[in-house]
Each structure stands twice: as C-alpha cells, then as structure tokens.
C-alpha cells in the first residue's frame, strides 16, 4: 500500500494517474476493514497453497531432506529424463489415461439419461425416493465404498461370486486380477457418482420453460419427440460445459479410489499417476523424482483446463472463470 503513495509522488507529470491513485488510496483507507477481513485467508493461501509451489523446485534437484531446498544439489532436468525413460512411469501414464477415458466414455452419458428418465416420472414420491437413494453414495468416503465392494466381490462368499457359482461359473478374484481390475474401478466409480452427477442436469431441465412443452404438445409431439427436440437441446450447453470440465481432469483417474482398492498384484493395470507419486515419494522416499512426476501431472492438468476454458468460451460464449 505504501508503494501506491510513493508512485503518486514520483509521477506528478501524469495528473490523471495521480488523481486515480489518490482516489484508489482513499478507497483503500476508507475500506480498511475489508482488507483486514481478507488477511487470514491470504495467510492461508500463501502458507498452504503457494509455499508448496516453491517446493516444486526439488523436482530439479537431487533433494536430500537434511540439506533442504537451499542445500541440495541441482540436477536440472535429470529427474524428467529419468521419468521419460522409465518403463514403470510409461505404464502408469497409460493406466491413468485408459481408466480416465473409460470413465468418461462409459460414465459420462449415464447421468444425462438418468436426468431425462427422472423428468418423465410424474409420481413425486417415487421420484424423490429414487433421488434420495442414488445421491447417497456420493456422501460416503471411498474407504467405505471400497469396503462394500471388497466384501461383495470377495472370491470367498462375496455376493457376486455366489451368483457366478450359482449359474455354474468359477469364482473370480476381481480385485486381484489384472484382467478385471480396471472394470471394477470404472464400475464402482459409476456406482458412487452417477446419481449425484445427474443433479446438475436435473437442475438444467428444471430451467427449461414449460410453455415450450405445451406448445409442442399442441402441435402433436409425443413425449419422445419432446425429449428429443426440447429437453435435450435445452440442456445441451450444460452437457458441453460439464464435459469440458471433465476433460480438465483427464489425468485424475481417481487416486483415493484406487488407493483404497488396489494391491501390488494389480499395480500393472491399476497404478495411476496419483497413486504412483504417493508410492514412490513417500513409500520409497524418492522425493525429487515423485515431485517431478507430480509436476508433470500438474502442468498437463493445467494446460487441459486452460484448453477447456478456451473451448467453452468459443463454443458457448461462457467461461468457467
């Protein structure tokens, strides 16, 4: 704030600028209490959000915890070279992309369909009951959900294997088999969030004007036609927006979920960037390398979000920030 006044004194040649700064300064003094309110949040932001960004420097070091960032040896891009040439990382990257793409392709359309179907239901009690039930898993932690599914998928007496055996098939160790692990991850993610993800489309449908339906009905359009020509176009901007946001999280394949489900047997297909950073960084104490992996993740994620927002601004004339 002092620099503002200093500027004013140093630049008398620009009276407009000086006057503007003067009034700015007055505005600040008059509203100093507003700035006091901002302070605790700023301390939080600088300490817990921006200080770790400074810590990213160790990705360019051979970091030693006893020497700290200032004392550790700089190695330039060595960690990133290691990353690109590591077969393990390449596999982890492929796993991340595959799981994330499966989740998008298979799970993205379902909430839209659920919202459309709920919109066709005219019995309020039924509608509310279904909504209450399908939102519930969203509020439970991944530990609980994984607990449920580890139980259900257990080869010794899990419900699914009971059914498999009942129809004459061999029991399957879903969580210990590389052939099934990704499917389990995608299915359980859908089970947890599909209902909740429908909420935004339900809200969008509620925003469509009722007159449009009445007009269509008079013109003789049945409910299927109304759905196709009114409801779907009505929520299209929301669909595109949610899709773009989703793309921004392409490299986030569900770290918490996989951490609570996997085990060394399925690292080959289940290890994703988030879990890998945790495993190598804190498990093997390879701080510099896993920070480099994390930085790679952050940068790509950041670029994807920027890309998505630019697309959204172009296509929808609406940006997320």
């Amino acid at each position: 704030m002092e620099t503002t006044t200093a500027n004013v004194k140093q630049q008398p040649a620009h009276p407009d600028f000086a006057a503007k700064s003067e009034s700015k300064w007055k505005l600040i003094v008059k509203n100093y209490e507003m700035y006091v309110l901002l302070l605790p949040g700023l301390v939080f932001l600088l300490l817990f959000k921006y200080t770790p960004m400074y810590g990213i420097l160790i990705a360019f070091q051979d970091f030693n915890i006893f020497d700290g960032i200032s004392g550790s040896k700089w190695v330039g891009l060595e960690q990133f070279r290691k990353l690109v040439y590591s077969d393990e990382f390449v596999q982890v990257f492929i796993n991340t992309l595959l799981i994330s793409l499966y989740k998008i392709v298979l799970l993205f359309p379902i909430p839209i369909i659920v919202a459309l179907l709920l919109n066709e239901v005219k019995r309020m009690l039924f509608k509310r009951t279904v909504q209450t039930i399908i939102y519930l898993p969203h509020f439970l932690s991944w530990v609980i959900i994984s607990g449920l599914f580890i139980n259900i998928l257990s080869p010794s007496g899990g419900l699914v294997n009971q059914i498999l055996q009942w129809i004459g098939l061999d029991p399957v160790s879903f969580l210990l088999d590389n052939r099934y692990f990704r499917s389990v991850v995608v299915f359980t993610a859908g089970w947890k969030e599909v209902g909740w993800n429908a909420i935004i489309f339900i809200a969008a449908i509620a925003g469509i004007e009722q007159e449009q339906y009445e007009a269509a009905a008079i013109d003789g359009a049945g409910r299927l036609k109304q759905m196709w020509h009114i409801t779907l176009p009505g929520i299209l901007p929301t669909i595109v927006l949610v899709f773009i946001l989703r793309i921004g999280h392409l490299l986030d394949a569900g770290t918490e979920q996989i951490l609570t489900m996997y085990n060394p047997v399925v690292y080959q297909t289940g290890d994703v960037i988030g879990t890998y950073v945790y495993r190598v960084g804190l498990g093997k104490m390879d701080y510099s390398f896993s920070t480099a992996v994390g930085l790679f993740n952050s940068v790509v994620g950041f670029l994807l979000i920027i890309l998505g927002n630019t697309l959204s601004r172009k296509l929808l004339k609406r940006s997320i920030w």
Partner: protein
Amino acid sequence: MKSTSLSDRCIDLFSYTVLTAMALATLLPFANVLSKSVSEEWAVVSGKVGIFPIGFQLDTMQYVITSSQFVRSFAVSAGITAVGTLLSILLTAISAYPLSKRHLPGVGAILVLYIFTMMFNGGIIPNYLLIRSLGLINSLWSLILPVMISVFNLLVIKSYFESLPEALEDSAKMDGARTFTILFRIILPLSGPVIATIALFYAVYFWNDFFNPMLYISDPSLKPLQLYLRDIVMDADSSSAITKSVDDMMNVSGEGVRAATVIASTVPIVLVYPFLQKYFIKGVLIGSVKG
C-alpha cells in the same frame, strides 16, 4: 387430457423400470454388508449370506463399536469435523465477503490468486514437506489447517453475497454500522441456506478424509475413523493379526467384523443425510447456476 399413446406408455415403463433397478443396485451392496454384520458366524464364514441375514446376532456389531480403537477414532473424526467445519465456514465467509466487492482495489487480483490454486498445486510431496517442516506430522491440525478454504465453496458464497441487494448494506452504513457488524449481523444471517450447504460440504469432507490422515498421521491414538476403517478393510487376509485375535476371542468372524465396521462408519452419514438433502440440492443449484 391424458395422452396414453403406446409410445408414451413405453416411456413410462422404461423410466420406472430403469430407475427402480438403479435404486435397487445402489441399495444391494448395503443390504449384503448389513446382513453379513448381523448374520451368524458360520453363515458368514461359509459365504452363504446374500441379501438377507442368516440367523441374527449383534455380538459382532457390539464388538466393533465397543473396541477402544473404534471409539477413539470415532471421537477423533467427530472432533476434526466439528472444529474443521466451524473454522472453514468462518474463514471462507470472511474471505468471500470482501471478494464480493470487486470495485475495491486489489480484490480482483486476490481472487485470481485463489482461482489459480484450483488449477495448479504443489503436489503431494511438497505439501508433505511443508507439513513436516511446520512440525504438524502427527498433529490433528495437519488435517484442518491446510484445507480450511475450498476455493469452490468460496466462489459459491461469494456469488451468493453478490446477489444480495446493496441497499441493505447502504442503509446499515447510514445507521453507522461498520463492516464487521454488517457482515455478522446482516449478511450472514441472510445467508442461511448457502452457509448450511457449504457447512455440509465441509463436514462431509472432514468426516470422509482419509488421504491427509494417511500422509500425516501414524500415531494410533490420533487415527481418524476412515484411516482405522481402511486398516481393517484393506487387511483382506483373514489370518492376519487384527482378525485372528477376534476369531480367537469371540464367536465373531474377521469378515463379519469388516462388514460391521463398514456399517458402523456409514451410520452417522445415513442418519444426518435426510435432514441435509434439501440443503445440498439448493446448494448445487446455486453452485451450478452461478459457479
């Protein structure tokens, strides 16, 4: 004038069938695990329990909810949730209020600082090193302080504040009210629904968090419920220490204990859930329309 054309009836049939199936598929895993937690030990061990319990006993449940570690972890989680939610709401609200006054110099820039952290962060290791150098490893503050402001929640509250009529504040100012008074006596009391929604989101976050405790907490007496639950759930080998001692001690099975622990940890959320529903639906509307 009811139209009962064939295609319309097909739509009805399809909607009701699919939605009913979805609701049942959501409930099924709960039914199964609940049944396992109250079925007789032999039925659980031999893998016969389906949707309905076989026999009935509450020994397993009693064993789980009276185990000292469960009680301790439950208390830790309840404490973190209460303190964390209160501090988060307070900090988020007092930060959102000035941020809703975009005409004030510097406010826009600070908002950018916040939003940037939604898109870019230091990552697990730099965060861990920060917590470590602050001496917060094995301190419950490590689970609260670093996550006190969720930028998404901040933006939701900010846009709600922006929607309040400015005349309210102007007239209060004329009566001589100052910023703090206006915020705590006028703005916040008018923001009940949005504050309740955000409180719910924070509370669910603190109650469910297991990632941060996994990074920062190793002292068993400080383990929150989710971390304790994870130890039990991931301990899939039934011959291991936790479950074996159980098998020897009582007529309860390790698998039954896992099931009962899952159920016991789910109950708090299921109990408060119906009361919160109206808030989160409202909250999502606010968040999605303006966020």
